């Protein structure tokens, strides 16, 4: 009896979650009257504005991942190795982006880096792109930090570092050749999450007036009928694809298997 109620709860949750998605999927296929077709998807993929905004967001996501890895991995490594007492502070700082609304952060950026400030980043497209990159890095910080921190907790960081040092490796070699390859799965998890966040992000891109995918999604939602549903399905597919990749990387990473 207990099992029945458990399955019933799962069933209700699945219906609650999947029914709207199925409805949206069905709607996205009904662009051609009287039959199912992929016209909405073809329309979206053929739209130059979609191509430009999606391409822009993909590049920004890639850069955010590189930027985030370069900042987070050495920082977490150093804190775990040399400053373990700072870990609670790190935990707190990396949680801040979850509690401070993005609109507050972006207004802060605009106030600090406007054209009349000492560092007028918003005065040029490149500067604003960099500001957006920093914003994305901040938004993804809680996920990247936790992914990397969990990865580093799973290896014997101190001993591996000391072993590499005793073999002549300097700090950069230790990080690049020993630590990073051994937390690659964790870093990739953080990277895929970052990718998913950046692709769908709206507030930063809209308020900094950059041609990203998020503002395009909102624009399409207000101006087209079937394409927004197709875009939503594609975005879901992309996000789930990222999650599947995390699983795949974890499963196929051969050196992370348990020792005999």
């Amino acid at each position, binding site marked *: 009896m207990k099992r029945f109620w458990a399955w019933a709860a799962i069933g209700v949750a699945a219906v609650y979650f999947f029914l709207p998605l199925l409805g949206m999927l069905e709607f996205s296929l009904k662009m051609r009257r009287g039959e199912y077709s992929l016209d909405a998807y073809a329309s979206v993929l053929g739209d130059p504005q979609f191509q430009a905004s999606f391409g822009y967001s993909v590049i920004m996501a890639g850069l955010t991942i590189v930027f985030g890895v370069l900042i987070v991995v050495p920082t977490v490594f150093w804190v775990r190795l040399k400053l373990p007492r700072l870990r609670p502070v790190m935990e707190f700082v990396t949680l801040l982006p979850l509690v401070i609304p993005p609109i507050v952060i972006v207004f802060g950026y605009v106030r600090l880096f406007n054209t009349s400030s000492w560092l007028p980043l918003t005065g040029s497209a490149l500067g604003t792109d960099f500001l957006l990159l920093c914003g994305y890095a901040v938004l993804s910080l809680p996920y990247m930090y936790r992914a990397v921190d969990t990865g580093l907790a799973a290896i014997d960081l101190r001993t591996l570092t*000391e072993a590499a*040092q*005793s073999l002549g*490796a300097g700090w950069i070699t230790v990080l690049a050749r020993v630590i990073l390859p051994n937390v690659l799965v964790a870093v990739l998890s953080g990277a895929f999450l970052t990718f998913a966040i950046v692709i769908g992000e709206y507030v930063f891109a809209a308020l900094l007036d950059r041609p990203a995918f998020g503002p395009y999604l909102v624009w399409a939602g207000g101006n087209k009928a079937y394409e927004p549903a197709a875009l939503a399905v594609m975005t879901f597919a992309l996000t789930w694809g990222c999650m599947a990749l995390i699983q795949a990387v974890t499963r196929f990473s*051969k*050196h992370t298997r348990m020792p005999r």
Partner: protein
Amino acid sequence: MAYLDLSALEKSYGANHVVKSFDLGIEQGEFVSLLGPSGCGKTTVLRMVAGFETPSAGAIRIGGQEVTHLRPNQRNIGMVFQAYALFPNLTVAQNVGFGLKIAGLPSREIALRVADMLELIGLPEMGSRYPFQLSGGQQQRVALARALAPRPRVLLLDEPLSALDAKIRVSLRAEIRDIQRKLGITTIFVTHDQEEALSMSDRVVVMNGGRAEQVGAPFEVYNQPKTRFVANFVGTLNALEAIVTDPGAGKVTIQGQPLRLPQAVQAQAGAVLTLALRPEAVHLHGDGDISLPARIAELQFMGSVIRVNAEHAMGVIKLDLFNKPDTPPPAVGEDIALRFWAKDLIALD
């Protein structure tokens, strides 16, 4: 000056003074063990030599060169860790060749050296395996090969056998010693296992409370302990109380039986002196300077040896008998006479 010279080393963490006035000279090719209980400072000394800890005072010299403030990667010191510390993402061959690659050796030379090292540790076919595909003993051998591959000036072994099971531990310690002799590499071995230290080392440093209590060959440390701590920590010990009768002549009495020790006694006449006696120096048959009545309380069968706990007026005295299948051991409760020679007694400070 010795090849590896540790002079007046000190290490403090705040008010906690973990290594105090530590001096040690190790000759080239020598195998020296740092032996002591947990927290005695032996690993801290090793880590200072490796460069992972900076001494609060003192100096470390290798081959006449001061290395006290050099970074670990500038010292050319090989180290083997208790937890193997093989790089999980690299194969065995890549692990062994790691230090050589860092040193910028040509790949052909790296391949040759790696093959030599794998041959040396008896795993020539394992180069393409990953660490998770090896047993604990194999992993530790690879760790040894990895540490030796760059031809370090000194090899440091930080309790490398502790994580292994008993049988592999015994065979691997013989292998390590054999490889060390073959390569003639100066080695410091840290352990809390006296059997390991005594069986492998040219010299043993017994440490306590951050200091070296005694430095000597295993035979000397075991048979002539200089302090009560060394006598207690290295091997098993019986403590007997004696009354000093003539300190200059080394005369004492044990349970009223007169005895002359091989050396003079640093105590006044009438003082109580503690004498140490190893279990293997006590016997049940034959002659002895002293014969004490006792009763067998317990027998512990330990394979080649039978440990007997005998109750005596001064407490329990332990003695070891060789296990001879044709001579059954005495029974529990049996009255016996414990015999030993005065020359086997060690006067403790």
